[in-house]
């Protein structure tokens, strides 16, 4: 019954999306207040119905209802509860339902909270959101129904890929989806604004919090995903330039650019067409990324099964939505009047530079991700690996970091280079000294990494300058947000550079009692013993690790064997110390009782994710600050 109820809820949500679209069109053409009110409520109901459908799917997984095909193929009754729940979105159909649910929730959120946007634009926005939803409801209903029954029911499920059986999975995909699909709001806002020819500071101020919220989720999702891959895959890397990672990075890059350009639009009424374009591109990248990869068109470790029907369906939807929006852009944006202009040396100028650099990086990631498809179309098989991305993107990212340091120090409209140079004297000197010191300490390290360290110091110090000569307690929250986010970028760059410059790796085959050195540590294999978990068994190595004269500690890397489905995974053991992480992976044993051990010493690598967390925290502070400020001004206006 639950499966049928879920399907019914899905169809009803689709029906409400039809009504929402119709009412949206009506209200945008000049409907009454009643129509507007009805539109808001319909959007709300659509969101609730989608959430209901998704909730019912989760319930099926919790109950391990093996008469449902999706549950039988992706779950197992012996799994811990949290992975039963997470299993609901650890597969194609479930993840698509989650996607649509977030889309409907985003629409409901706009209907519920958006009070600043011009009513007609809001109506067009909600209509656009419903129109997007409809296509994906159709996709779910006709090409990937999660509620299909299995008759007769399976006696037991096939289990969930053990790599996905990790607390990370429970939070990572939903967080990313909130980010991806949250950007649909920016997309719908832009479509609404294009239809109503209503682009200006008020529109930008209305859009900004939604973009910020989606961007925060994306930032958290990417950071957490990176750490998850780092400790779960056991490869010691934290970013692999896999198509799926790129798929999450591209919308983030576009959203980051959008976040900055929307500020120009809100504050100075400039960059109108560009901001609209970015709003379209950000969500287009979300859709292209999610679907290209999930459909298996691009080869990726994250791809679910290839299915030409689904692939064509998705392609058609992408064509309609992205193609339609870009056509609307081409036809309408010419009639959007130009906003105000500015000098090159100004806050706007720096933000334009930031936007251009972000766009170039986005373009490179896009080309690198799709190039194998181009090659395949002309009959060559190749894949583009990390070297391409690292070589092309690292230098641009460092220039971008320099621009990030400069931007907040400039005045709007126009500024003078002399004062800027004076302000940057201290950070530049510190960055230069940092570079020189590290170069002297380790002249053989890759120079790009040493430059990275210098840039990180420069950016970190320069980012705090906006707080100088301010009363800290009266500094607006969004300034704090910007400062913290920019410091986060610096911290992240520092972590990446330290990892590139100073990580050491050791691959050994050790017998019990033997020792190996890695970085400042000596690792002794004390014993190898069996270990048991709820649905796995493992061999576990006990490592005794000493560093100089300090107290030794123990680490326990494992080789796990899951029975359903039968799979081996390596569980890396990671010890975090103040200046980095020691990362150990247990491999297979040989006949003579030697065990493969992979040891990495990664100085300061934790800074990468600390930086990511700071960036997200900065975003959150900015969001709170903006929303509070909007509310205050709204109150003042209503009292006036």
């Amino acid at each position, binding site marked *: 019954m639950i499966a049928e109820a879920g399907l019914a809820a899905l169809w009803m949500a689709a029906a409400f999306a039809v009504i929402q679209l119709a009412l949206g069109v009506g209200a945008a053409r000049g409907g009454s207040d009643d129509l507007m009110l009805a539109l808001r409520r319909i959007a709300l109901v659509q969101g609730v119905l989608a959430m209901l459908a998704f909730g019912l799917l989760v319930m099926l997984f919790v109950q391990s209802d093996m008469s449902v095909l999706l549950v039988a193929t992706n779950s197992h009754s012996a799994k811990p509860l949290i992975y039963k729940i997470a299993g609901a979105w650890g597969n194609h159909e479930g993840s698509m339902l989650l996607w649509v649910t977030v889309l409907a929730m985003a629409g409901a959120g706009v209907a519920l909270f958006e009070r600043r946007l011009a009513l007609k634009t809001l109506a067009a926005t909600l209509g656009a959101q419903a129109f997007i939803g409809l296509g994906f409801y159709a996709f779910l209903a006709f090409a990937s129904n999660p509620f299909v029954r299995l008759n007769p029911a399976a006696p037991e499920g096939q289990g969930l890929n053990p790599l996905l059986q990790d607390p990370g999975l429970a939070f990572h995909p939903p967080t990313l989806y909130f980010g991806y699909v949250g950007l649909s709001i920016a997309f719908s806002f832009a479509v609404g604004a294009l239809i109503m020819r209503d682009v200006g500071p008020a529109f930008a101020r209305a859009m900004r919090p939604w973009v910020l919220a989606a961007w925060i989720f994306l930032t958290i999702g990417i950071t957490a995903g990176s750490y998850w891959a780092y400790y779960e895959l056991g490869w010691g890397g934290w970013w692999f330039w896999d198509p799926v990672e790129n798929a999450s990075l591209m919308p983030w890059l576009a959203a980051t650019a959008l976040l900055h350009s929307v500020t120009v639009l809100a504050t100075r009424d400039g960059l109108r067409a560009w901001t609209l374009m970015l709003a*379209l591109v950000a969500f287009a990248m979300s859709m292209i990324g999610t679907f290209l990869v999930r459909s298996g068109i691009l*080869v990726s470790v994250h791809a679910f099964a290839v299915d030409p029907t689904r692939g064509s369906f998705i392609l058609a939807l992408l064509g309609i939505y992205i193609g339609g929006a870009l056509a609307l852009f081409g036809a309408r944006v010419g009639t959007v009047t130009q906003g105000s202009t500015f000098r090159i040396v100004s806050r706007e100028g720096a933000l334009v530079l930031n936007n251009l650099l972000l766009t170039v990086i986005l373009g490179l990631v896009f080309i690198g991700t799709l190039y194998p*498809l*181009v090659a395949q*179309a002309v009959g060559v098989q190749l894949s583009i690996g990390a070297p391409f991305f690292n070589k092309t993107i690292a230098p641009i990212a460092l220039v971008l970091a320099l621009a990030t340091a400069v931007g907040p120090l400039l005045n709007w409209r126009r500024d003078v280079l002399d004062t800027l140079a004076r302000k940057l004297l201290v950070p530049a000197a510190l960055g230069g000294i940092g570079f020189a010191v590290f170069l002297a300490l380790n002249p053989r390290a890759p120079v790009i990494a040493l430059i990275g360290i210098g840039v990180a110091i420069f950016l970190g110090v320069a980012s705090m300058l906006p707080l100088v000569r301010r009363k800290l307690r009266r500094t607006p929250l969004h300034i704090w947000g910007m400062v913290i986010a920019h410091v986060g970028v610096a911290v992240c760059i520092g972590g990446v550079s330290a990892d590139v410059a100073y990580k050491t790796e050791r691959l050994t085959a050790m017998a019990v009692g033997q020792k190996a050195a890695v970085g400042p540590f000596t690792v002794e294999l004390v014993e190898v013993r069996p270990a048991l978990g709820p649905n796995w068994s493992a061999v576990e190595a006990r490592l005794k690790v000493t560093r100089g004269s300090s107290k030794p500690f123990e680490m326990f890397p494992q080789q796990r064997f899951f029975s359903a489905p039968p799979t081996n995974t390596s569980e890396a053991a990671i010890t975090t110390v103040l200046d980095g992480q020691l990362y150990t992976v247990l491999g297979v044993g040989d006949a003579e009782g030697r065990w493969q051990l992979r040891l990495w010493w990664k100085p300061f690598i934790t800074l990468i994710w600390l930086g990511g967390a700071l960036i997200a925290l900065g975003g959150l502070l900015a969001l709170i600050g903006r929303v509070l400020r909007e509310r205050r001004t709204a109150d003042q206006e209503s009292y006036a």
Partner: protein
Amino acid sequence: MKRLLLWLPLAFFAAVLALVASGLIKPADRAIHSALIDKPLPEIDLPPLLADKPGIKGGFGGKPRLVNVFASWCLPCIAEAKQLMKLKEMGVEIDGVATADTTPAMQAFLAQNGDPYARIGDDRNRKVQFSLGSAGVPETFVIDGRGRIVMQHIGDVREEHLPELLAALEAAK
């Protein structure tokens, strides 16, 4: 001109869409093909790892040979040692590229598993391994009489692979 520019994103997207559609019609070939087949062997100049065995410097051409990328720390290499010994007994000359290895570890390995190698080169920093386009150990390359790579075998050599390797060696004369 500016009007045209505004339609550029749409045109670009249409091209991407066409590209993806082509990818959908022609699914990706996921097999690994060596890019170096029928190409001359990259120059190999490796110092000896062991005192009593020469390193690898040139010497390709004439009689077909095998180049085996291996390591003492690699467990599948132990499994394939037996097959390599068989090949040696059949008169096949094998050069070993010792990947990220040390002299004592290699001595122990050879004492334990037999020594099928005519020469062993010390590829400590994996330069030669990478220049051969080898992603892991073990991998085995068949080099023909003109010093060209005619076959790349990825993974350990098992009994069932021997006919294929011998055929390639025969054809490469």
